[in-house]
C-alpha cells in the first residue's frame, strides 16, 4: 500500500480555476446519501401501496406498534442531531470544544439504537415476526435497515470523536460524519410517520 500512496502523490492541477465548492469526500457522501434516500423511498412507497390495498389494516391478530415509546426514542435521536449541530459550530470556532457535544451525539444515538432493539425484542415476544404478516415483514426490514445505518453512522461519530481527542480530526472526515448522521436522523421521523402512525 505504501508504494501506491506515493504513486498518487502527483500534483493536482493548480487550484486557480477549479476551487472545490464541496470537499470531494463530503461530495461523495452526499451522492451516496441521495442513493440511500431513494432506497428508503422504495421501501416506504412499497409499504404504502401494500397498506392502502389491504382489505383490513392493521393485520388482525398482530400486536400494535408502540407509538408512544418510539416517540420518546425519536426525541432522543432528534436531540442527537441537535448536539451534532452544536458540535459543528464548536468545531468551526475552536475544534477541541466539539468533543463534548460529539460525545453527547454518540451517547444519544446509541441510546436510540439500544431502545429500538428492546422494542424489537418485545414485539418478537408478542408475536410480530418477519413472516407473521406483511406489517411484520416491512417493519423489521425498514427499521432494521435504518438501525444498520445508525450503527455504521455511530461508528463514524465514534471515530470522529476519538480522532478529535487525539487531535487530528480532518474537516472533510467530520463533514462526512455529519452528512451521514444527519441523514440517519433526518430520515427517521419520516419512517416513524409512515410505519408507526
Amino acid at each position, binding site marked *: 500500500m505504501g*508504494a*501506491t500512496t*506515493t*504513486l*498518487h*502523490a*502527483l*500534483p*493536482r*492541477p*493548480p*487550484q*486557480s*480555476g*477549479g476551487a*472545490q*465548492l*464541496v470537499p*470531494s469526500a463530503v*461530495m*461523495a457522501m452526499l*451522492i*451516496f446519501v*441521495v*442513493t*440511500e*434516500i*431513494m*432506497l*428508503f*423511498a*422504495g*421501501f416506504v*412507497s*412499497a409499504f404504502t*401501496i*401494500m397498506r392502502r*390495498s*389491504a382489505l383490513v389494516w392493521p*393485520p388482525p391478530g398482530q400486536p400494535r406498534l408502540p407509538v408512544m415509546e418510539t416517540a420518546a426514542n425519536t426525541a432522543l435521536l432528534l436531540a442527537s442531531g441537535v448536539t451534532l449541530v452544536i458540535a459543528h459550530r464548536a468545531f468551526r470556532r475552536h475544534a477541541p470544544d466539539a468533543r463534548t457535544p460529539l460525545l453527547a451525539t454518540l451517547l444519544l444515538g446509541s441510546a436510540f439504537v439500544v431502545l429500538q432493539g428492546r422494542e424489537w425484542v418485545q414485539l418478537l415476544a408478542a408475536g410480530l415476526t*418477519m*413472516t407473521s*404478516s*406483511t406489517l411484520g*415483514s*416491512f417493519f423489521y*426490514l425498514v427499521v432494521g435497515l435504518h438501525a444498520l445505518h445508525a450503527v455504521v453512522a455511530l461508528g463514524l461519530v465514534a471515530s470522529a470523536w476519538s480522532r478529535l481527542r487525539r487531535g487530528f480530526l480532518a474537516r472533510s472526515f467530520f463533514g462526512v460524519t455529519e452528512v451521514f448522521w444527519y441523514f440517519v436522523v433526518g430520515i427517521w421521523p419520516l419512517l416513524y410517520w409512515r410505519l408507526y402512525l
Partner: protein
Amino acid sequence: MATQTMTAGAAGEAHAAHAEQTFWQRYVFSTDHKTIAMQYLFTGMAMAVLGGFFSYVFRMQMAYPGAEVPFWGIVTPAAYNTLITNHGAIMIFWVAMPVLIAAFGNYLIPLMLGCDDMVFPRLNRLSYQIFLLSVLVLFSSFFVKGGGFGGAWTVYPPLSSKAEYNLTPGGSTIFLIAVALEFVAFLMGGINFITTAMNSRAPGMKMYDIPMVVWTIVLASILFMGSVGPLVAGAVMLIFDQTIGTAFFDPNRGGDPILWQHLFWFFGHPEVYVVLLPALGIVAEIITVFSRKKLFAYRTAIYVAIATCVLSFTVWAHHQFIAGIDPRMANIFTVTTLLISVPVAQMMLVYIATLYGGSITFTTPMLWALGFIATFLLGGVTGIFLGTAGSDIYFHDTYFVLAHFHYTFYPIAIIGSFAGFTFWFPKMFGRMLNETLGKIHFWVTITAFSGTFLPLFVTGILGDNRRIPDHRIYPELDTPMLNGLREFATISMVIMLLVQFVFVFNVVWSLRRGKKAGKNPWKANTLEWTADSPPPHGNWKDLPRVYRGPYEYSVPGRSEDYWPQDVPN
C-alpha cells in the same frame, strides 16, 4: 493529502518509482484509471462473448427446434429459460454497463478533464473488484442444483420467488445477489465519476467546456444513483421471499406481485437511458471530429440530455400496460412515454445538423457513429407502437418487442461501444487499427444485425410469442412463413457472430503491426489527445490548462481546422 504541496520535481521522482511496480501491482491491483478502464473493458468483452454464445444456442433452437445445436447439444426447455434469462442480464448488466459507463468513463473522464486520476483511486479499484466478484457469483449460479436462474431477466414474481415455479431454487437467489453486487460496484464508480467531474477539472475548464461524452457519462451516473435504490429495495424483499418465507410479493398472504414490477421498472427504464446517454456522448464526439464542424447546439444537447434524465423517471409503467394497472394510469404513462421521444429526437437532430455541410471523412469510427444514428432511429420509432397503450396490448410479449429493444440496445451497447473503441483505440494502445478490416467488420456486422432483427419485427406483428422454447406445439406459430423468417434471422445472427473474428484479428494484428498513432491521429480538440498514446501513469508531465470549449473546428482565420482546448491562441 500531501499532493497539493508537492513540487513538480517530486512528481517526477514519483514517476520514476512507478517503473518498479510488479506485474500484479501494475495490472491486477492497480489504482490507475486507465488500467481499471481496461479491466472493465476486457471483462465486458469476455462477457459479451458468453452472452453472444447463449443467444446463438437459443436462436438455433428457434430456427431448428429440437435439433442438436453444435457446441451445445439438445436445448431442453429448462436450459432455454436459463440461456435466455442470462443472455439478457449479461448483455445489460455485464456488457453494456461495464463497457459504456465503467470502461469509457474511467478512461475518458480524467483524460478529458485534464487531471491525473480519479478523485478516489482506491474506491475505483474496489469498484472493479466487486464487479469481478459479481461476475464470479453469476458464474457460480450455473453450477448449483437446478442450474442458473430461468425466470427472465426482469425477475417477475411469483415465477422468480417460488422454487416450484422456476425450478432453479439456488440459481434465482444467486442471480439476485450477483446483480446487487454489480450495482454496488457501479455505485462506487458513479460516485467517483460525479465527484471527479465536479472537483478535478483542469484550470480554466468551465461547465460548458466539458466534452459531451463526459457530460453524458456523469448524467448517466446520476440517473443510475437516483433510480437504483427502489430496485435494491425490491431485490432485498425478493431475496427474503425466496429464502426466509416472507410474503412481500405473494398475494395469498397480503403481498402484491405487481409491486415488484413497479420497483423493477422504476429502475429498469431509467437504466435504458443510463446506457443510452454514454453512447450518445461517444457518437457526438466522433461526429464532430469527422465532420470538422462545431457540435451543433452544444448547450441544447446538454439540456436535452438532462431532460431525458428527468423524463425517464416518469415512464416506467409503459412496461406494465397489460399487467393489470389502472387504465387511467396507462393513459398518463402513454403521454410521458411519447414525450420522452422529443428530447431523444432532438439529440438525433443535433447530430444531423452537425453533419450538415461538414467535410465528412468516412473512417471506421465515423461509420459506426452513423450506423448508430440509423439503427437507433429505427429502434426509437418502433418504440412508439409499444409506448402507446392501445397498440401495446396487441404487441406485448411478441417478437416485435424483442426486435424493438434489440434495435435500441444493439446500437447502444454494441455499435456505440465499437464506435468508441475504434475511435479511442489509437489513444488506448498507441497504434492505428486497420481501416480495411474495420470497414469489412462494420458493413457485415450492421447488415447481419438488420438481417437478424428486421424479420423478427414481422414475426412479432404476425403474433409470434416470446419465451416459447419450442413453437411446434402451437400449430398457428408453425407456419412456413414464420419458420422461414426465423431461419433467416438465425443465419444472419450466426454471420454477425462469425464476423467478430475479423474484429478480434484486427485488434490483435494492429496491436503488433498497426501504424504508430502519435498523440493526435484524428486532429481532435479534446484534452485526451494532448497526452502521449498510450498515456503514462499520471497522464501528463505538466497538467494542461484549458482556454476554450471542446468543439472549435474549422474556425475562420486559423491555418489549421482544429483548435485544441489547451492551446492559448
